[in-house]
């Protein structure tokens, strides 16, 4: 039997998070973000944070909530549009921003979790991303050396999780969550459904519990949609 990783809620889960730390936060846009943990980080009023996350939320949701309170000193992301306060802080120099190609960001997180300190990728060669980085040719094609990323705390959001910390994500809400779960010194998972150990099919688990130190059932998920795009329904008579 595995030890239970369950904590009672976001406050207990975020115990130990301090100003100045490096955090990873899963999600793509507002999809699959650790809503409850972000809310707790706002309450904790920790600041001077370095946040590694593919995006930076919108003005009033996701990481935008931490930006509003000026809790973030540096963002490491691949795309940071859709956020006016972000733009203001970045242009004013209050916020440091390190932009990384999305695939390199994902692979650097995985590498951090997998004990691979560095790897070569073609992404970014010949661009400003390559500045200061080693370039080496493999099979005649130039690649740049990218290093692993890790974090003091990683916050991930899953659909289901068990008491041993095993996680299952839903659809495209998986995105960066599995790699960040691997790369956190302490990884905190929030889930919509928390089930007893042995409930999840061991063949269908996306993140093995070994990567998760704390798990809790999140409450009141808003799961906001950033771009609601739909097709109109035919009227009943045409169906």
């Amino acid at each position: 039997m595995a030890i239970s990783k369950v904590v009672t809620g976001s406050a207990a889960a975020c115990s130990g998070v301090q100003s100045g730390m490096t955090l990873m936060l899963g999600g793509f846009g507002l999809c699959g973000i650790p809503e409850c943990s972000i809310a707790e980080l706002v309450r904790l009023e920790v600041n001077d944070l370095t946040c590694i996350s593919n995006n930076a939320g919108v003005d009033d949701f996701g990481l935008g909530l931490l930006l509003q309170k000026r809790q973030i000193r540096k963002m490491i992301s691949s795309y940071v549009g859709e956020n006016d306060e972000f733009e203001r802080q970045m242009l004013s120099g209050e916020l440091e921003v390190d932009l990384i190609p999305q695939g390199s960001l994902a692979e650097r997180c995985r590498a951090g979790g997998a004990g691979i300190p560095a790897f070569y990728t073609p992404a970014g060669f010949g661009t400003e991303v390559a500045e200061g980085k080693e370039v080496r040719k493999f099979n005649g094609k130039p690649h740049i050396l990218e290093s692993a990323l890790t974090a003091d705390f990683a916050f991930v959001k899953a659909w289901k999780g068990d008491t041993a910390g095993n996680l299952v994500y839903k659809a495209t809400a998986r995105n960066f969550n599995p790699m960040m779960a691997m790369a956190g010194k302490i990884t905190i998972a929030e889930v919509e459904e928390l089930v007893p150990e042995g409930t999840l099919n061991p063949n269908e688990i996306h993140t093995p519990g070994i990567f998760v130190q704390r798990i809790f059932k999140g409450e009141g998920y808003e799961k906001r949609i950033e771009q609601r795009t739909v097709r109109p329904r035919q009227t009943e008579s045409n169906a």
Partner: protein
Amino acid sequence: MLDKNGIAKRIAQEVRNGWYVNLGIGIPTLVANYIPDGMEVEFQSENGILGMGPFPLEGDEDADLINAGKQTITAMPGAVYFDSATSFAMIRGQHVQLTVLGAMEVAQNGDIANWKIPGKMVKGMGGAMDLVASAENIIVAMMHTNRAGQSKLLEACSLPLTGVGCVKRVVTNLAVLDIREGAFHLVERAPGVTVEEIVAATAGTLVVPDDVPEMQIS
């Protein structure tokens, strides 16, 4: 001259049966609307789905199911979800046969700039740098000139690069052009567009063959 849908229609003709295709935001997204019936193509969205379907019916949208443009989508039968590392393993490992994306500038050596304008808010490159650095088959979909009327097909890019020497073909509102041997090669004219108009709108070196057929777009 083509509109955006016309550009997408022309690019759809480049797609082959059985291909996996990644479509960027903007004009490239429209390409999915013009794949001929019976052609089996799977669309990859780099946030973690293969087998992306059309937008959901009103009321069926799911916050957990979006594309790389953060739009709500559906999944086709046979679809699969995966994490971002696996997604870019597909892209970097050249398992995706075609990448279509927009650009601010394309150079005659195949360089592309589409992510940053100095002095303006930088939103980031997203997955574009990974896509252009790895894809074997990159088609740029864009207008031939910018809003100021200046050519976007240049001798060299003036904006910060997204990738070097990677673009093979460009489809614009005026023409289809191939990039090879350090020059743009005119392949087709858009309906009603003359070679002279294309020459005038192209700042980079343009090689014009004797015969430049007009695009066949239904």
